[in-house]
């Protein structure tokens, strides 16, 4: 665990989550511990079904009933907390609000007067590169643009920790790369402490200071890889040999887990069939 908890923005200590299922008790997350420092960008990567979304929901406070402790700046939290801002994987913009009204949502909740909150919201809209789209409705935007609105909305609440669950999963590769660049830019500018859940290797290495590799179910921390690449992580860095080495290193671990995941899935389907 290392440094005194006061200096770490987010402390996740011995988180375990078990639940009952038709086939017996299942452990989704098994004794995960890690921390995120101020201004750090940490990614958690793991194969599908490894429990990373469960972890996301636990840290964000949407799932209770777990073992372990989540702490922000040393103070234990339980349930949703203003210090943690969440960006979800699915479409989460409010279709009935304009872009700027979507982004102003958290400001509205804190009672910021109308003119001020619209101004502040507009600044976040510009920050994510959607300047001029404030009065459009989400239905008029592309998927990538909508995710940017969702990110802007969460940023507008100025959370201590930005927690994102595969926000680019539904997007195509090019959009994903461009958005990743944008997010990195913003993160550096705001010095926003960020925890990103992803299954995309390149994304993890490109964006993070550290990458935490999770095992397949039950999800455990397999490895921590420190990414010592220069910032900004422009195309030169991304195409460098060092970058490739990090990707390969992480892929080693990930591939094991992914293979195990596929095998377990197959055996489960086989068992179910035999049971009939």
């Amino acid at each position, binding site marked *: 665990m290392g440094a005194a908890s006061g200096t770490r923005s987010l402390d996740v200590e011995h988180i375990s989550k078990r639940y009952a299922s038709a086939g017996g008790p299942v452990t989704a997350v098994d004794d995960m511990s890690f921390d995120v420092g101020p201004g750090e960008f940490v990614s958690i990567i793991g194969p599908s079904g490894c429990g990373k979304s469960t972890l996301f*929901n636990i840290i964000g406070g949407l799932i*209770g009933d777990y073992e372990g402790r989540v702490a922000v700046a040393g103070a234990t939290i339980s349930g949703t907390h203003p210090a943690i801002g969440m960006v979800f994987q699915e479409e989460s913009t409010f279709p009935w609000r304009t872009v700027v009204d979507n982004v102003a949502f958290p400001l509205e909740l804190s009672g910021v007067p109308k003119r001020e909150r619209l101004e502040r919201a507009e600044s976040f809209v510009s920050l994510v590169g959607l300047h001029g789209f404030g009065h459009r409705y989400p239905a008029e935007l592309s998927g990538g643009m909508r995710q940017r609105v969702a990110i802007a909305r969460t940023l507008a609440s100025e959370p201590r920790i930005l927690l994102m669950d595969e926000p680019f999963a539904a997007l195509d590769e090019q959009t994903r790369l461009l958005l990743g660049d944008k997010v990195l830019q913003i993160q550096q500018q705001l010095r926003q402490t960020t925890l990103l859940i992803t299954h995309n290797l390149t994304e993890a290495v490109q964006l993070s200071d550290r990458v935490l590799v999770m095992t397949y179910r039950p999800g455990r921390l397999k490895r921590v890889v420190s990414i010592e690449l220069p910032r900004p992580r422009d195309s030169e860095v991304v195409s460098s040999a060092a970058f490739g080495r990090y990707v390969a290193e992480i892929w080693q671990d990930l591939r094991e887990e992914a293979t195990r995941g596929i095998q377990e899935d197959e055996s489960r389907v086989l068992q179910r069939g035999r049971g009939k």
Partner: protein
Amino acid sequence: MRRRSGTSSWRAVALLRIAIIATVALAWEMLAASGLLFRDVVPSLGVIGSAVVRLLADEGFYRNLLITVGEIAAALAIGGLAGVGVGILLGANRFLSRAYESLIYYLGPTPKIIFFPVLIMWFGVGSGSKIAMGVLSCFFPIAISAAGGMRQIDPTLIRVGQSFRASIGQMIVKVYLPAMREPIVNGVRLGLGVAIIGTLLAETKLSNRGIGYLIIQAYSTFDMPRMYALLIVLFTLAIGANAMLGGLARTSSAAPVPAATGMPVQ
């Protein structure tokens, strides 16, 4: 998964239902006893109960019930056949559909009872005009459902029939109708509902037979307990018939079928 879902036990549900019914019954009895409303408008539950028993023991009731059921059955048969026939035609041919289907779609949600004077002129004051009223009511939802049902048939199935060189009649009976079972049953369900309404309303307006007639008779003699009894029995039968058809629809597909909240047609 993220939200903790509490499943209500069936026991709690049953208890709540009993509680609601008991509260309503209590309120009713208090209203009946208080004399707030003109006497007899709210008869006590006991009086209503005995009226129901008397009704169900009355031979005349069954005579009239038979007449009404006969009218509804005839209306459903005629309207159903015509509706399915027209629906198949419209569903099969895109040109015909674009030419005539909106006519049926827009004529559906209109008050049909206002046609009754005309139907009396054409079919007389007896059961004929009541059946006609029922046919007019149920034709539209059935035709619309059938047309939609035709269009959602997997075109591959049609090609299979054609590859075996089935005749039109065979295609209809062996391919179209079976493939359309669910939308047709749903259409008939809706159609039954509006046929009941159309036929009975016609009976209340001008008739000397049938359940509708009995209801108006109870009204004009101010026999409120009997009117309540008639309405209770009528509603039970109508809801029961609808539920049965719903069960029929369910056996043709896995998902449960919602109640008739489709596009209204009367």
